[in-house]
């Protein structure tokens, strides 16, 4: 039993207790989608794990911001500012992307105010390069005062000599950065140059409404008179909480403009449906009751009883073997987002369908013909712990996890057909020409597994609506156009064969997994992909190697190919760091023939949410790569059961790149081994073990 699974809750974080002092010490979102007042920052931050999207209207200066508070004290926002300049001769347009990092150094306590610093655009070539140090203090129940000092763009009014220059002369003048193609961290200029003071007040009028006033030090020299008039340094506004997941901001800015903000928030730790609205599992049936039924092991009806019992809870029996007092069962889980829940429900069905002399259940989840951990549960523990107040951690401690390979499947397991039709949405955020593009339509998918580990599957997509194809910007890439022709694919592939592949999965030894996939692997490439993975069932570490030979597909995404072909592949190391973090390094040759490595860090929640960042450095020089210098981005997965509260394994996944270029581009293959196997193994299984009992 580990402490992690046993939050002996003195603070009942799970229940989002409202009205506590904790709630009052959160910052509101400001007009730059960061923690703050109106245009200025403040010192508090947001609840850990909160993810938000803010859209802000200000005349000729609109903003779109995606933000995340990865853990307490650290707030990160990606800001996209669309500036229009109403210049005399022609109308100028400028899209600017910048990164905000806000760190809460001291929390408010007693007489001590909260203290934070922030840096805007440490990466990139933004016009918004600036830093701040800010303090906020709550006085009484309703009033909060904020005062701070800003540098760079936040030193635009009432400036004075940088006090840090007392420490060192280098702070006296702000260095001009050589930002090149952007994307590379630049520390030149940070906290340098003249500084200015800002501050403001927040008055919490009601539980929902907060009134705000501030003195802004933001420099709008370029915008003043071109975008909007800056007649005053004072801003007045309000923040109104619409509901748990949305709030609205309104402000009278700089004595001339009305500004409005809408922020949508979600916290992966707090699903809208709580712990889940699924129907109750079947109860654990004690052996004393089963014994009265006169079942015995040689009874041929056992397997049928078990198969229909599993079917009733949307699981599939793949194999059954009874040896002595142990029943070994292989299951397929098409239904439950957490494998631990599928195993727990299987154990309940076993308790109701197996003769009383069976004392141990060994349950193995099977995915694509390969096996995860063999989980052994004593029938006595199942009976004893069903309604125990510590059932989750206790049963994890008492269960056995062992390496295994699949049993030969029962005849009914194959062929296994599956098909589905579902809407899809394909967003493209932060396109240099338009921050929010998206396509939506329907996707028809079908698969058949003719034998163990064999899988033939395909997907056809029909776009119904969207503007991804409106991107006219021709690729200027000097590399092979492996990704930068995406807009042509979108334009010509209104009806697209996204994938059509045949795959074989094998597990030659308990800790070794293999895959061969051939066909139309992804919308832009087809060919052959092979992979080998080493992942012992209880290991945090996994190692993999992948080798592919692929040809670029025609733009219309039918059956034809273009004449670019490439051998690409990687060796990969995956590590479950613990505490909800996962790291991955992939080294090898990318689609454009470039060599390099991708570094990925994911924050993964035990309900399936995951948010990660990646960066790829290859031998393509930054100048050849083009805008952004190298490939990087964020990846996000939202499980659908989190949204709906009903069991499903579906999720919504997207990758957000500031710009998509051809360097460091990796082949997409469905059903890669690590993502297939990881959820069936320790430590991943144990991380959500409480769900065994749900």
């Amino acid at each position, binding site marked *: 039993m580990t402490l992690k699974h046993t939050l002996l809750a003195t603070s009942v974080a799970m229940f989002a207790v409202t009205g506590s002092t904790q709630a009052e010490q959160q910052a509101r979102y400001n007009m730059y989608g960061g923690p703050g007042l109106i245009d200025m920052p403040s010192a508090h931050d947001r609840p850990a794990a909160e993810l938000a999207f803010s859209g802000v209207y200000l005349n000729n200066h609109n903003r779109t911001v995606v933000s995340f508070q990865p853990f307490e004290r650290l707030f990160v926002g990606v800001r996209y500012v669309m500036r229009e300049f109403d210049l005399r001769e022609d109308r100028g347009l400028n899209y600017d992307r910048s990164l905000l990092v806000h760190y809460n150094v001291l929390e408010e306590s007693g007489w001590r105010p909260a203290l934070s610093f922030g840096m805007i655009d440490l990466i990139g070539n933004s016009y918004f390069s600036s830093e701040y140090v800010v303090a906020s203090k709550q006085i009484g129940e309703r009033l909060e005062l904020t005062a701070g000092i800003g540098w760079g763009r936040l030193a635009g009014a009432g400036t004075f000599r940088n006090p840090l220059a007392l420490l060192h002369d280098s702070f006296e003048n702000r260095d001009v950065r050589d930002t090149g193609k952007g994307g590379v961290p630049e520390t030149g200029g940070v906290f340098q140059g003249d500084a200015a003071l800002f501050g403001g007040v927040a008055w919490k009028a009601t539980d929902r409404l907060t009134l705000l006033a501030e003195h802004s030090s933001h420099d709008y020299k370029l915008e003043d008179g071109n975008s909007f008039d800056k007649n005053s340094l004072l801003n007045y506004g309000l923040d109104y909480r619409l509901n748990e997941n949305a709030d609205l901001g309104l402000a009278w800015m700089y004595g001339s403009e009305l500004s409005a903000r809408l922020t949508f928030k979600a916290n992966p730790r707090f699903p809208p449906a709580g712990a889940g609205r699924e129907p109750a599992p079947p109860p654990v*049936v004690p052996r004393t009751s089963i014994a009265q039924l006169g079942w015995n092991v040689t009874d041929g009806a056992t397997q049928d009883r078990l198969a*229909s019992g599993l079917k009733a809870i949307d699981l599939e029996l793949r194999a059954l073997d009874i040896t002595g007092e142990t029943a070994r069962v292989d299951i397929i889980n098409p239904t439950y987002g957490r494998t631990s829940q599928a195993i727990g429900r299987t154990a309940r069905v076993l308790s109701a369908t197996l003769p009383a002399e069976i004392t141990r259940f060994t349950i193995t989840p099977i995915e694509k013909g390969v096996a995860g951990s063999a989980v052994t549960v004593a029938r006595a523990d199942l009976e004893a712990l*069903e309604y125990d*107040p510590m*059932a989750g951690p206790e049963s994890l401690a008492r269960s056995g996890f062992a390496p295994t390979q699949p049993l030969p499947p029962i005849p009914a397991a194959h062929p296994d057909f599956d098909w589905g039709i579902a809407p899809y949405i394909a967003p493209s955020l932060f396109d240099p020409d338009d921050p929010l593009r998206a396509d939506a339509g329907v996707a028809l998918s079908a698969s058949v597994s003719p034998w163990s580990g064999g899988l033939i599957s395909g997907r056809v997509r029909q776009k119904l609506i969207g503007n991804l194809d409106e991107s006219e910007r021709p690729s200027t890439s000097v590399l092979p156009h492996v990704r930068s022709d995406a807009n042509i694919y979108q334009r010509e592939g209104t009806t697209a064969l996204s994938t059509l592949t045949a795959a074989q999965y094998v597990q030659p030894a308990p800790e070794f997994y293999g895959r061969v996939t051939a066909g139309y692997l992804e919308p832009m490439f087809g060919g052959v992909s092979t992979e080998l993975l080493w992942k012992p069932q209880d290991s945090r570490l996994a190692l993999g190697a992948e080798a592919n030979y692929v040809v670029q597909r025609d733009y219309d995404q039918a059956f034809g190919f273009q004449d670019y072909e490439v051998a690409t592949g990687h060796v990969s190391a995956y590590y479950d760091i613990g505490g909800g973090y996962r790291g991955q390094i992939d080294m090898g040759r990318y689609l454009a023939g470039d060599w390099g490595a991708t570094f990925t860090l994911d924050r993964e929640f035990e309900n399936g949410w995951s948010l990660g960042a990646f960066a790829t450095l290859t031998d393509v020089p930054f100048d050849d790569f083009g805008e952004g210098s190298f490939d990087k981005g964020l990846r996000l997965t939202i499980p659908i059961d989190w949204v709906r509260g009903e069991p499903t394994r579906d999720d919504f996944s997207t990758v957000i790149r500031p710009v998509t270029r051809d360097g460091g581009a990796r082949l997409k293959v469905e059903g890669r081994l690590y993502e297939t196997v990881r959820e069936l193994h320790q430590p991943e299984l144990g991380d959500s073990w409480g769900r065994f009992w749900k």
Partner: protein
Amino acid sequence: MKTTLILLAATAMLSGCGLLQGPTAADPRETLRRADLDAVGNPLLLAVLPGKGVFASLMPLVRKGDTLTWVTADGVTLAFENGVLTGSRGLGDDLMGGDAGGTASAIAGGATRYARRYGYLSGDNQWIALQFRCEVTARQDETIVIVEHRQATRRTDERCSGNDLVVENSYWAGSDGLVWKSRQWVGPEVGYLETERLVR
């Protein structure tokens, strides 16, 4: 109790009992007559979630030692150990498990101060155990009426505090220890549960 083992036919079994209801917003006690209940061959429990305004009737599903699990027509289950709620499933933020020993002893006229734990699953699938200190605040004889049936009971009130919460539970038990009526806390999200034993 043998019928309760045929879990796979559970739905079919339950629909055979016309009085068993899924959740409704109307209080079935307003229309029920004792004569209807006398015709029921099985025990029947009425459960009310006053915070949500939901009524449902339940039948026994399986007995395991001192724990009896009941089920509604729509598949929500409630488990009671000697009449003390130790678990729910299908209510969303379910009570995943709970102690019953101290409370059961109190209902039987024994313990007056004891510890009690409640187990929950967080939205991030982590186990949360809430610990409470409980004490018996009142014991008195009461005659209650459940759909025309008069029943002499001893009422036991229990007050549990911990985790910045105060929880007050009440149990009305017959002289043989059967809990005829109760008001019990399920959890921070679900709130209280009220039960009445419609058919013994």
